[in-house]
């Protein structure tokens, strides 16, 4: 993406600086800390009672305990994230399980077109299935080499880095597949249903 703006001989630090600027979506500013945003009290779920579930329009629901989830094939992810409150953070480092791996365990009903991620505390967010698959989303349980802290959504959160970060549901407990779209917590209150930061899809109607 940045290559178009960089001449062939343009190397080293200047190229890095140029690339960083090109990685900040319109209307966003870079931060080096990790702001904590929350719509409610931080849930404290006992890992012995934690589970992750795929349900809705699937032939058979799938469910994992914490230990079973840890045994799933995991990957490291290095991603830029953008929050609709206008901060962007580059190169965040996560470990977790790709949504593609999770979906290998269920057979989707052909009518399924949308997914709602649901969380401890009642938060929900909605996505069309094409935004969930093909390496675009994962369930993270470690951040920068440490277990994901509760204030950042631990023990596990959905991460959908190509959309505004409210789509990356903290304290996620499952995915529900649906035939019809169902706006989530912020999407039902005037925020954009899709939330692509590069298109500045902040509010409904953007």
């Amino acid at each position: 993406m940045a290559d178009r703006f960089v001449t062939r001989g343009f190397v080293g630090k200047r190229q890095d600086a140029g690339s960083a600027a090109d990685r900040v979506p319109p209307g966003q500013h870079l931060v080096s800390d990790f702001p904590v945003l929350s719509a409610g009290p931080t849930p404290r779920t006992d890992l012995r009672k934690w589970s992750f579930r795929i349900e809705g329009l699937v032939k058979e629901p799938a469910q994992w305990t914490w230990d079973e989830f840890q045994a799933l094939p995991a990957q490291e992810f290095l991603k830029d994230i953008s929050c609709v409150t206008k901060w962007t953070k580059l190169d965040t480092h996560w470990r977790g399980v790709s949504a593609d791996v999770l979906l290998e365990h269920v057979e989707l009903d052909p009518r399924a077109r949308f997914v709602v991620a649901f969380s401890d505390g009642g938060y929900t967010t909605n996505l069309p299935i094409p935004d969930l698959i093909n390496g675009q989303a994962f369930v993270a349980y470690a951040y920068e080499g440490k277990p994901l802290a509760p204030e950042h959504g631990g023990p596990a959160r959905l991460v959908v880095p190509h959309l505004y970060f409210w789509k990356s549901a903290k304290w996620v407990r499952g995915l529900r597949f649906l035939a019809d779209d169902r706006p989530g917590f912020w999407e039902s209150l005037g925020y954009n249903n899709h939330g692509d930061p590069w298109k500045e899809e902040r509010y409904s109607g953007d």
Partner: protein
Amino acid sequence: MTDDPLQDLVLDGNAVAGSLVDAFGEEMTATPGECASCGNVAPLAGLVAYTRGPGIVLRCPACTAVMIRIARTRQGIFVDVQGARGVAMPPAALRPIA
């Protein structure tokens, strides 16, 4: 809640008095609201306010259920009061959201 590292982010309804005026058209902090989940009645000033997010979330001080949500968008202010019963709404608030 005392061991909650987020406690310093939690405010009460007084902190969002201005947003309540924007949303309802008049001063609301003394207005009582009943939690639709547990029935607890508290003035809106006594609700627990979460303001560090895309919008403002006001929760019941007794059971933490969402009572009121307010979001300021390009189209205007969105207000959801589904979690609050018996809030005596001023006439200006009696309009469709957005």
